[in-house]
């Protein structure tokens, strides 16, 4: 019993380190990526190629004054950033990085991730409400309607995969995609359901929903800076803002982990297990896949302008949800046939 507890504590500690390092260096990657798309070098001053920029930014954020404006609902105001960060950390506990690197394999891992993802949406509402700022309020109302609209297709798509795999355990879902890249769920050919043309579409839906769930451009309506100044975190300074920021990047990592596990075969080597080191099923492939997806996230952010809230809701309710529902029905039917 105590060993399990120790395990979980250790796992959370490692998750915090992983998330912290990722958040810090993803910001660096983001800025370098932005520079690459914008004909400029990005951060270059601190360290070789600006590699010391993230720790220095961290120190700056931590040493700044945490300003609590008059008139805010203090308790709620203070809780919101914590609420943004902690669900992301907990979610990492169930994510299998390879067949043996997983903090705590929970049989309902998918459920855990979605339960805590929903909590992340609440932090935005709480932050906007507690700030007592009109811009923050508008932003949090937007963010919540966005979270609700995009969690539905996200869940339906995931249920489709769960139906194919017959398991809510993320590890088991990957175990079924280990025979080379043709066995990945993203392809329309699958041994369980035969031929389902909608699978790549489902993959796209999951991808779009992850972008929207993490409030990233072109769906960054919660913090649309040209309309709502900084949205729900307008009033936050110092680490309050820092936690929102880290929470956002942690959510990106979780989103890409989920895409990788559900559709791209997790830690599996795309060529099947060849027995020679880099070409075995190992954690390297998993990291490669999630960072490729994060790269696409960054690429999209620096290419497209922002949509509007009604455009975003239309996309979800009129297209994504019907298509994913149809795919759910189709998959269920095919499962019966084959």
């Amino acid at each position, binding site marked *: 019993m105590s060993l399990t507890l120790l395990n979980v504590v250790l796992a959370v500690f490692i998750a915090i380190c992983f998330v912290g390092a990722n958040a810090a260096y993803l910001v660096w990657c983001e800025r370098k990526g932005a520079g690459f798309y914008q004909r400029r070098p990005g951060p270059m001053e601190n360290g070789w190629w600006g590699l010391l920029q993230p720790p220095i930014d961290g120190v700056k954020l931590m040493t700044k004054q945490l300003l609590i404006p008059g008139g805010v609902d203090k308790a709620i105001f203070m809780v919101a950033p914590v609420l943004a960060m902690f669900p992301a950390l907990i979610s990492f506990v169930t994510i299998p990085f390879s067949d043996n690197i997983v903090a705590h394999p929970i049989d309902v891992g998918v459920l855990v991730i979605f339960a805590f993802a929903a909590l992340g949406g609440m932090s935005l509402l709480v932050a906007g409400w507690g700030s007592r700022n009109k811009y923050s309020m508008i932003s949090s109302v937007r963010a919540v309607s966005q979270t609700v609209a995009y969690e539905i297709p996200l869940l339906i798509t995931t249920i489709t995969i769960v139906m194919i795999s017959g398991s809510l355990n993320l590890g088991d879902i990957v175990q079924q995609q280990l025979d080379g890249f043709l066995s990945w769920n993203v392809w329309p050919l699958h041994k369980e359901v035969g031929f389902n043309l909608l699978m790549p579409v489902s993959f796209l839906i999951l991808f779009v929903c992850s972008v929207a769930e993490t409030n990233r451009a072109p769906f960054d309506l919660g913090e*649309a800076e*040209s309309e709502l100044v900084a949205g729900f975190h307008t009033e936050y300074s110092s680490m309050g803002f820092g936690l929102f920021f880290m929470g956002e990047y942690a959510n990106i990592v979780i989103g890409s982990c989920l895409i990788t596990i559900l559709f791209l075969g997790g830690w599996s080597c795309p060529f099947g297990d060849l027995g020679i080191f880099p070409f075995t099923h190992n954690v390297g492939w998993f990291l490669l896949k999630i960072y490729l997806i994060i790269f696409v996230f960054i690429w999209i952010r620096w290419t*497209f*302008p922002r949509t*509007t809230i009604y455009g975003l809701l239309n996309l979800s309710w009129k297209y994504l949800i019907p298509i994913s529902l149809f795919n759910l029905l189709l998959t269920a039917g095919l499962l019966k046939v084959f």
Partner: protein
Amino acid sequence: MSQPIELQKDETFVLNVGPQHPATHGVLRVKMTMDGEYIYKAETVLGYIHRMHEKMAENRTYPQYMPNMGRLDYLSAMAFNHGYALVVERACGIEVPERAEYIRVITVELNRISSHLVWLGAYVLDLGGFTPLMYCFDDREQILDLLESVTGSRLTYCYFRFGGLYNDIDDEFITGTRAFIIRMRKELKMYAKLVTGNIILMKRLQGHGIIDKDMCQRYGATGPVARGSGLNYDVRKNEPYSVYPELDFDIPVNDGCDSYARYLVRMEEMEQSLRIIEQALDKLPEGPVNPEKKPKLIKPPSGDYYAAVETARGNFGIRLVSDGGKNAYRLKLRSPTYSNMHLFDEACRGMLLADALAFMGSLDLVIPEMDR
């Protein structure tokens, strides 16, 4: 699409946009009465950057007032230089050498392109796309370098003199400008691919921010705002000045009336400006850039004088009343975005906040010019 809704007057709140807000690009303040995310009414509050430019004209001699022109519209300062030089030349009857006229046209049009580039970058930034801003500023940098080499300044130019120019251009400027024209044509094609055809951008601009012809005329809107509503009015064609009649160029007009129409008009104007520069460089005559005979002291005979030029934002009119002294008796500046801005309240009612700010960006506001 935003649907027109019944707005409830008694369930509104006031959202204070500005004077420090990322979308207003300066110290413009708009008091928006909102019903949810819909705008019930928008009240513009000016005065945050008022510097009494008109009053200054009454206390300075005519040459001393020239630097003020660069401080009005900091993005197309050259055209403002032109307007002021034009009205004083008309008042004093000073002849401008032909070479100077051509150089004036070249620099004004270069400045117009750089102004539109800033607008394009800032506008797409308003819509949430950051990358085009960097591309636009990269191109604008080429223009600033060219203009810096002849005028000595990069932003607030004071290049024009009564009857001529501060400085002649050199061969380096001419070759640099020709190289820039080739580069800019390529870049405009890139912008068309990167920005103009973008589905998100089109959805956000098409059908939003409708201003019809009648509203433009009622408010006295000019420039790309009026031309985007199908109003074919451009001072360069309608009240020709300088050597514009000798150059072959088109005035882009679009009947769309929406934000996208204004966007397209400005993109087309950049191409036309390149055409003008190219022709002016070909026709550039030899000769002095300042008149041989020029009065030592500028003292226009008493009377009432007017000149108008087309800046990047529209009709800039300048009315000078002289009592024969060395200072103006009264100088009235009619700046384009002051009129363009006042459409905003009427046109934005019932719009969503996000659309209204996209609409505001399409008016291309420069606050120091509006709020002189």
